[in-house]
C-alpha cells in the first residue's frame, strides 16, 4: 500500500532488520521547509519524512529516514540490526507531525479557510515517504479514535501527488474539500511555539485581502499579527482594513512599531484614523510620530471628528480640479499622479485658491470651495476641449462634518452616490464619504451576534 495515514503509523512497532521489536513509533519528523531553486527558504509542496521518534527507556530517540527500510501501517523496519541511540533534537524547518500538526489549526489556501487537521495522508514514493494531504473528514476522526484500526482504506479518488502547477483556486461556491493537498496548506508559527520555521506565508499573500482578513479573523490575535507581519506593507494595509475592528488594534499593538507605522501609512486615512482611535493615547501619539508627515496630518485631521459623524467616516483622499482645465488635460494629468486615490469616479471642481503652475499639484488641492462635480463617465465621453466648468453638476448633494453618519449613508443610498462630499460652512471641500464606508454604516458587521440569539440586544 503506497498511500496510508499518520494515525495508522503512530504506535506501531519498530523492528530491526532481523525482526526484533525494539520500540513503538511515537511520532514522525517531517521537513517542511527547504531551500528552493532560488536559494530561498520556502515550504515544500510535499514534505519528506526525515525520520522517526521513538521512546527508548523513556527518552525520545531519533531514527533518521536513511536507517529505515520500510514504513507503513505494519510499522517500521530498520535497515540494520542495530540502531544509533541519537537523542531527538528539534532542527530548523522540521516539525513533529503528531505533536505540531495534528489537531492544530492550519490555513487551507485553496479553500480560503482555516481548518483543523484530523489526520495526515502519507505516500511512499520509492525510498522516501512524504506528507501528501491533510484529511479533515469525519472518517478521519473515526480513524483517529480507533487508533488507525478502522476506516483506513484510502479513498479511491485520492491520488499520489501531482506535479502540475496549480493554476486556479477552488471555485468559491464548491463544497468544502475533505482532503486537502499539502501544497495548499500553510501552517502557522504561533500555534506551535516550539517549532522553528521561517514561514513567509507567500501563498497566503496571493489571496484577495478580504479572504486573508477573514482567515486572520478566525485565528487568535497573535496569529493574525503573524500573518499581517508576513505580508508586504500594501497588502498588509488592505488586509488589516478588512479585519474585524476589535482585532485591528490588538494586532497593531503586537507589531513592531516602525512596521505598524509603515502599514498605517498605506491604509486609507479614514481606516487608519478608526484604528488609531482604539489605541491608548501614548501609542496613538507614538505611531503618528513615526508616520510620514503628510499621511500623519491627514489622519490627524480625521481624528478630530467623532466616530458617529460624517466627519468620522470621511476620507481626504480625492481629486480636485480647477474649473478651466480641459478634458484632455485632465486625462493626461490623472495619468501622472503617483498615488491615485481609490475613488476617482468623481472629480471635484474647486475654486482655485492658490494659483500654481504645477499642473499635477492642481489635482489635489485641499480646502477649496466646491463649485461642482464631474463624473468620470462624463470625462471619458466628452470631447477633449470641454472645460471642467462646462461639464460639472452644480446641483450636488453634500453634508457637513458634524452631520450624523447614518443620515449621510442613507443619503448616498437614496441618490445612488459612490461618494458624498463633506463641506464646511464656507462650502469648502473637507473630505468625501466613500460608498464602502457608507455600506458598513448601513450593514454593520454582526457576525458574533449570530452565535447568541438576540436576547441581549
Amino acid at each position, binding site marked *: 500500500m503506497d498511500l496510508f495515514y499518520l494515525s495508522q503509523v503512530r504506535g506501531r512497532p519498530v523492528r530491526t532488520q532481523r525482526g526484533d521489536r525494539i520500540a513503538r513509533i511515537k511520532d514522525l519528523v517531517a521537513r517542511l521547509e527547504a531551500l528552493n531553486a532560488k536559494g530561498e527558504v520556502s515550504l515544500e509542496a510535499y514534505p519528506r519524512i526525515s525520520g522517526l521518534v521513538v521512546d527508548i527507556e523513556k527518552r525520545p530517540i531519533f531514527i533518521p529516514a536513511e536507517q529505515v527500510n520500510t514504513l507503513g501501517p505494519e510499522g517500521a523496519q530498520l535497515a540494520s540490526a542495530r540502531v544509533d541511540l541519537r537523542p531527538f533534537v528539534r532542527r530548523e524547518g522540521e516539525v513533529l507531525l503528531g505533536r505540531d500538526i495534528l489537531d492544530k489549526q492550519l490555513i487551507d489556501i485553496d479553500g480560503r479557510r482555516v481548518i483543523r487537521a484530523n489526520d495526515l495522508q502519507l505516500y511512499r514514493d520509492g525510498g522516501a515517504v512524504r506528507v501528501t494531504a491533510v484529511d479533515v473528514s*469525519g472518517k478521519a476522526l473515526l480513524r483517529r479514535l480507533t487508533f488507525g484500526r478502522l476506516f483506513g482504506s484510502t479513498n479511491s479518488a485520492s491520488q499520489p501527488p501531482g506535479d502540475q502547477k496549480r493554476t486556479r483556486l477552488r471555485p468559491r461556491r464548491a463544497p468544502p474539500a475533505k482532503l486537502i493537498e499539502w501544497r495548499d496548506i500553510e501552517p502557522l508559527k504561533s500555534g506551535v511555539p516550539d517549532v522553528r520555521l521561517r514561514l513567509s506565508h507567500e501563498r497566503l499573500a496571493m489571496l484577495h485581502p478580504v479572504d486573508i482578513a477573514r482567515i486572520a479573523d478566525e485565528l487568535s490575535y497573535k496569529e493574525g499579527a503573524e500573518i499581517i507581519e508576513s505580508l508586504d506593507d500594501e497588502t498588509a494595509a488592505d488586509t488589516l482594513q478588512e479585519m474585524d475592528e476589535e482585532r485591528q488594534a490588538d494586532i497593531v*499593538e503586537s507589531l513592531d512599531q516602525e512596521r505598524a507605522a509603515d502599514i498605517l501609512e498605506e491604509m486609507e486615512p479614514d481606516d487608519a484614523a478608526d484604528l488609531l482611535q482604539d489605541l491608548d493615547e501614548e501609542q496613538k501619539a507614538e505611531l503618528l510620530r513615526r508616520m510620514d508627515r503628510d499621511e500623519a496630518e491627514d489622519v490627524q485631521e480625521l481624528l478630530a471628528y467623532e466616530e458617529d459623524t460624517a466627519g468620522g467616516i470621511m476620507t481626504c483622499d480625492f481629486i480636485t480640479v480647477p474649473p478651466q482645465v480641459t478634458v484632455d488635460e485632465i486625462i493626461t494629468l490623472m495619468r501622472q499622479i503617483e498615488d491615485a486615490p481609490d475613488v476617482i469616479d468623481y472629480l471635484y471642481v474647486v475654486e482655485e485658491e492658490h494659483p500654481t503652475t504645477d499642473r499635477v499639484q492642481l489635482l489635489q488641492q485641499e480646502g477649496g470651495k466646491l463649485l461642482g462635480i464631474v463624473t468620470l463617465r462624463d470625462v471619458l465621453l466628452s470631447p477633449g476641449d470641454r472645460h471642467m466648468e462646462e461639464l460639472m453638476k452644480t446641483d450636488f448633494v453634500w453634508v457637513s462634518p458634524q*452631520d450624523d453618519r447614518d443620515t449621510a449613508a442613507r443619503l448616498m443610498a437614496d441618490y445612488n452616490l459612490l461618494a458624498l462630499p463633506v463641506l464646511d460652512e464656507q462650502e469648502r471641500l473637507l473630505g468625501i464619504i466613500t460608498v464602502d464606508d457608507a455600506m458598513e454604516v448601513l450593514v454593520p458587521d454582526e457576525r458574533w451576534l449570530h452565535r447568541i*440569539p438576540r*436576547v441581549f440586544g
Partner: protein
Amino acid sequence: MAQTEVTPTRPVVRSRRDRAVFRLRASLLALLTVAGPGLVSGFADNDAGGITTYSVVGAQFGYDLMWLILASMLALVVTQEVGARLGLTTGEGLMGLIRERFGVHWTVFAVLTMLVSNVGTIVSEFAGIGAALALFGVPIPVSCAVSAAIVIALLARANFARVQTIFVVVGLGVSVAYAVSAALAKPDWGRAATYLVVPHGTLSQTYLLAVVGTVGTTITPWGQAFIQSYVADKRLGPKDLTASRFDISLGSFLTNLVAGFIVVACAATLWAHGQTNITTAADAARALQPLAGRAAEIIFGVGLFAASFLGLGTVPLTSAYSTSEAFGWETGLDRTWREAPFFYGLLAFFVGFATLFVLIPGLPLISVIYLSQVLNGLLLPIILVFVFLLAGDRRVLGDLRSGRTLLSLGWFVTVSVSVMSVALVVAQIHG
C-alpha cells in the same frame, strides 16, 4: 453654454438636540448589545435550574447554605475570568482549545461530559416551562409543544428579538420581586449575614446534594464554554482584559445577589414555617406570598417561564456550537440542514430528547430540575481540570497565563468541587 443657477442641495439633517437624544438611545442599546460577556453569562445563570435550586436550598436548609452563595460567587468569578482570558488570548472556544492542546481523544471525553451535562440542563428548562405552565393549568404535553416551538422560533430568530427583550425584563422583574419578598417576609437578616461567612449545617446526604447542586447551578459546564466562546467571537483581545474582569465580577455579584434573595425569601417563608419540602412549583411560589399574596403563584409562574425561556435560548446553541467547533463541523444558523448536518442534528437531538423526557407521566418536575443541577455539579470538576490545565500552560496563554495566585485559587476551586462530588457519590452508594 447656459448654466442653470441652482444652489447645491443640503438636505435637512438632524438638529443638534435630536442627535444628542439619538446618541443616548444608541449608547444604551449599545450597552445592552455590548453588555459585557460577564453580565450576559451571569444573567443566563438564573435559569429554571437556578430559581429551583435556590428555592429548594432555602426551603430545606433555611440560612445554612448562605456561605455557599458567597463562596460560589467567588468561585464563579475565578472560573469565568479564566474562561474570558482563554477566549481573548487564543480566539478559540473551550472545546476547540482542548482539541488543540490535548488532542482528539481527550476532546471526545470532554465533549461527552459536556453533552451529558447540557442535556440535563436543557431537560430542566423544558421541565421549568412545564412546571410554570402547570401553575396555570396547562397540561404537560401542551407545554412540551410550546417549549419545542419556542426553541425552533428562537433558532429561526424570526423577529424574536423583541419578545426576548420582554422576557429579560420579566426576569429582572421577578428578581426584584424576590428581593422585595425577602424583605417583606421579615427574615432573620442577622443570621443570613452571619451565615454568609460562617458555614453551617450538618453534613448529611441531602446537605451534600444541596451543595453540589448549588455549585452546579452557579458554575455550569455550559457556562464555562459560553463565556470563552462569547469573548472569542466578539474578537476581544488583551486590551479588553480589565474591562472583562470588571464586568465578570459585576455579573457574578448580581446573579448571586439574586440567588441570595431567593434563598432568604424561601428561608423566611417556607423553612421558617416548616414547609421544607418543595415538590411542585406551587410550593416554591409560596415564597413570594409576602409580596404578592395570592398573586405569588402567578408571579412565580411567569418568572420561571421567563427563566426557562432564557435558558432555552442559550444552552442548546452553545452546546451545538461547542461540539461542532471541536470536531470541525460546519456550524451556523445561517446554513441549511444539508450544509451543517451535525450542528442541526445536535439541536434536533436536544429538543427531541428533552421533549420526550418531560413527557414521562408523573415526572416530578421540580426534582428533575434540581437533580439536573446536581448532575452539573458532579460533572463540573472534569471540565475545570481541563480549564485550569490550559490556564497554567505557557504554550497556550504565553504571558497571559494565570499567575500563581489565580492558578492556586483555580485549583482550589477544582479540588473542592471534586471532593464534594466524590463525597456525594460515596454517600449515595452507602446511604
